[in-house]
C-alpha cells in the first residue's frame, strides 16, 4: 500500500453529486483516492471486475453492509470495521480470505478528508490482513438520503481440506470456548455518541480474526463451528447455534470475561454486556477431547490471549441457553428482544 495522499489542492473539500456521476470527477475520485490507497495489480487494471484463478478447494463467499454511527469511534472507524467484519464472516467458516470487494454509498456533502481517513483506514486493515481489495464501486446520493458513508464489503475465501464448520454441528458434550472479553465494541460505540456525555477508556475490539482461525483449524480441524458474536452479542450468537444445532447450552457466568470499564458502563446505562456487539471475538465449539488443545492454541495468539472455556453443549429439545450465575443460581440467557434499550431506573 502507498500512503494515500491528500487529494490535490483545488479539489472540492466535500463530496458532491458529480463525484458519483460516472464522468471525470468520478474517475478522479476513484483514481486519486481509492486506487491510490488500495493499490494492487488487479485494481490497477481498472476493469469493472477483478479476474483471478481460484484454488481447487471449497470456496466461501460473504457480503456485509456497514452503517455504523458515528463513523469514527475509539479503536476504529467504519473503514476498518468494514474490512474486519467481512473477513471475520469468511473466517467463521474456517476459511482463509482471498479477495475483498468494496462498495461505497456516499452522502452528498461529507467532508473529503473524512472519506480520506476512512479509505486510509480500510487500506491499512486490508494490508495488515494480507487480503487485497480488488474491485469496487462508488455512488453518491443526495444529502439526507444516507448517513455520511455506507460501506458494503464482500469477500471470497477458501476452506482448507478436512475442515467443515457449520452452526448446525454442535453436539451435546461439546465444549464452548470464547476468545476474550465481551461488550467492548458496543460500549466504545455508545461512548462515542456525544448524546451520552460519558467518556470511557474502552476501545472497540474490531480486529480481523482469520489468522487466529487459521492457527485454530490447523491445530484442531475437528472444530464443529465458530461464530463471531457481533450484533445481538454473545447471548444471541449462542442462541443461534442452539437453534441451528437443536441443542442446549450451559454457560458459566464466571468464565465469561468482561472488562471492568465495560461492566461499569453497563451498570450505569442499564445495559447487559451479553447483548452488546463485539467485532473481534469468536465463539468456537469443539469435541470435549480437543478443548484443551484448542484453548492453548487460542491463548498463544495475540487475539486469543483472553480465551476461556465458557460452557458445555447440552441435550435440550427446546434449544435454550442457560447461565449458571456467579452466585450459583441458574437462569435462562435469552435472545435479544429488539434493540438493547436502557432501562429507566
Amino acid at each position: 500500500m502507498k500512503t494515500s495522499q491528500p487529494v490535490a489542492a483545488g479539489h472540492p473539500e466535500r463530496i458532491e453529486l458529480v463525484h458519483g456521476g460516472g464522468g471525470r470527477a468520478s474517475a478522479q475520485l476513484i483514481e486519486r483516492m481509492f486506487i491510490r490507497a488500495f493499490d494492487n495489480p488487479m485494481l490497477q487494471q481498472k476493469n469493472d471486475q477483478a479476474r483471478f484463478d481460484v484454488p481447487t478447494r471449497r470456496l466461501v463467499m460473504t457480503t456485509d453492509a456497514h452503517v455504523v454511527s458515528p463513523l469514527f469511534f475509539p479503536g476504529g472507524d467504519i473503514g476498518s470495521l468494514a474490512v474486519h467484519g467481512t473477513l471475520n464472516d469468511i473466517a467463521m467458516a474456517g476459511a482463509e480470505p482471498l479477495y475483498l470487494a468494496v462498495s461505497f454509498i456516499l452522502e452528498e456533502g461529507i467532508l473529503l478528508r473524512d472519506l480520506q481517513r476512512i479509505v486510509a483506514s480500510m487500506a491499512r486493515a486490508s494490508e495488515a490482513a494480507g487480503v487485497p481489495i480488488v474491485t469496487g464501486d462508488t455512488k453518491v446520493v443526495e444529502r439526507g438520503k444516507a448517513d455520511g458513508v455506507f460501506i458494503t464489503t464482500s469477500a471470497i475465501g477458501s476452506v482448507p481440506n478436512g475442515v467443515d464448520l457449520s452452526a448446525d454441528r454442535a453436539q451435546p458434550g461439546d465444549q464452548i470456548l470464547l476468545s476474550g472479553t465481551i461488550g467492548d465494541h458496543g460500549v466504545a460505540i455508545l461512548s462515542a455518541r456525544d448524546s451520552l456525555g460519558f467518556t470511557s477508556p474502552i476501545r472497540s475490539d474490531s480486529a480481523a480474526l482469520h489468522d487466529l482461525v487459521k492457527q485454530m483449524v490447523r491445530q484442531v480441524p475437528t472444530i464443529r463451528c465458530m461464530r463471531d458474536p457481533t450484533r445481538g452479542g454473545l447471548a444471541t450468537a449462542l442462541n443461534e447455534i442452539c437453534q441451528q444445532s437443536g441443542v442446549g447450552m450451559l454457560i458459566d457466568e464466571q468464565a465469561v470475561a468482561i472488562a471492568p470499564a465495560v461492566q461499569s458502563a453497563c451498570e450505569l446505562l442499564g445495559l447487559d454486556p451479553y447483548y452488546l456487539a463485539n467485532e473481534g471475538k469468536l465463539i468456537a465449539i469443539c469435541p470435549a477431547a480437543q478443548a484443551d488443545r484448542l484453548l492453548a492454541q487460542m491463548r498463544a495468539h495475540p487475539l486469543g490471549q483472553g480465551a476461556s472455556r465458557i460452557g458445555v453443549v447440552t441435550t435440550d429439545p427446546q434449544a435454550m441457553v442457560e447461565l449458571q450465575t456467579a452466585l450459583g443460581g441458574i437462569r435462562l440467557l435469552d435472545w435479544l428482544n429488539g434493540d438493547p434499550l436502557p432501562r429507566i431506573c
Partner: protein
Amino acid sequence: MKYIEEFRDAALARTLAQAIGQAVEPGRTYRLMEFCGGHTHAIYRYGLPGLLPKAIKMLHGPGCPVCVLPIARVDQAIELAGRPGVILCSYGDMLRVPGSDRRTLLQAKAEGADVRMLYSIDDAVTLARQLPQRAIIFFAIGFETTTPATALAILRAQKLGLSNFFVFCNHLLTPAALDALLADSPNPGSWIDGFIGPAHVSTVIGTAAYQQVARRYRKPIVIAGFEPLDLLQAILMLVRQLNSQRCAVENQYHRVVRPNGNRLAQDYMAQVFCLRASFAWRGLGTIAASALALRPAFASFDAERHFPLAERPSREHPGCACPAVLRGQLDPAACQLFAVACTPANPLGACMVSAEGACAAVYAYGRQPLREAL
C-alpha cells in the same frame, strides 16, 4: 470499595442463603413481595430463586413504571409525537411499549415522527434551547426516583425563560400504590407476608414513608439495595421479623437510604408538583392521590394543558391476567397468555412490556424448569 463486586460475592451469598435456610421455621411458607421491578429483574438475573429454600416464595410487585402506565397515556404520547413541530423525548424502554392497535413510539418514529431517546431529561432542556422553533415534549414517567430530575428540569427551563419545553407528566407515588395493593381486597394483603421495599425510590422518600403502610396492614417492610447480597440479607431480615411477629420498617440499604430520605429532592418535587385526585394505573385500576401533576404555577410547561389531548379508553386484552400478577396473586407462568400469545416481542399485558415487568423477567430468565447447578 467499588460498591458493586463486594455485593455480588459468591461465598457471602452462600452463607446468607444458608442462614435463611436455618432461619425458616419448618412447615412455614414466607410469601415475600419485592415491590420494585428492579428487584424482580435482579432476583432473576442473579439466579436467586435457585439459592433460596423452598419455604421462601417471592411474589413480584407492581413497581415497574413502564408496566403500570395505562395504554391511553402511551396513545397520547404517540399523538403528541405526531403534532407538527414536536420533538418527543423519552427514556429508552418507553419507546417500544405498544399502545392501542399495537403501535409504539418507535413505529411513530419510523413513520416520520421526531422521537428521541434520552438518558437525561436535562438533555431535553438543552435541546429546547438549541431548537427554539420546535416544541420539545418530555414523556416523563417513573416513581419518586426520576421525579426530582423532572422537577429540576422544569425549574431550569423556567430560569432560562424557555417557552418551547413541555413535560407530559406521568410520575407515580410508591406508598400510594403499596396502600392500594393491600387495601383493595376484603382481606387486606392476606396473600403477602412481607415486603422488600424499593432501593432508589427510598433514597428519595426515606424509610419513614413506609411506616403508615407497615403499621396499618401489619406487614414487615425491609428496604433493600439492588445487588444480590442486598436482596438475600433483606430476605433474612424479613424472615427474622416474621418469626418474631414483628412488622417494622427496616433498612438494609443503609449505605444509601436515610430515614427521611433526600430532603432537597423532596423540596424540589413539592415545589413543582401537586397530587392528582386520582390516576388510572394499568393493571391496578384507579388509585386516589397516587400520581403527580404540574402545579398551576408551572402550567406553561405542562404538555397536557398546552396540547389538549382527547381522553381515550385503555382497552386491555380480555384474557390478560396482569391485574392478578401485579398484585402477586398469580404466577406469571400461570397466565393463559404467558409465552403463548404474550411474549416480550409481542407483549399483550402490562407485565410483559418492560424488561422489569414480572412476566418479562420470568420469560427472559426462567420460563422452563431449570436443571440443577453444575
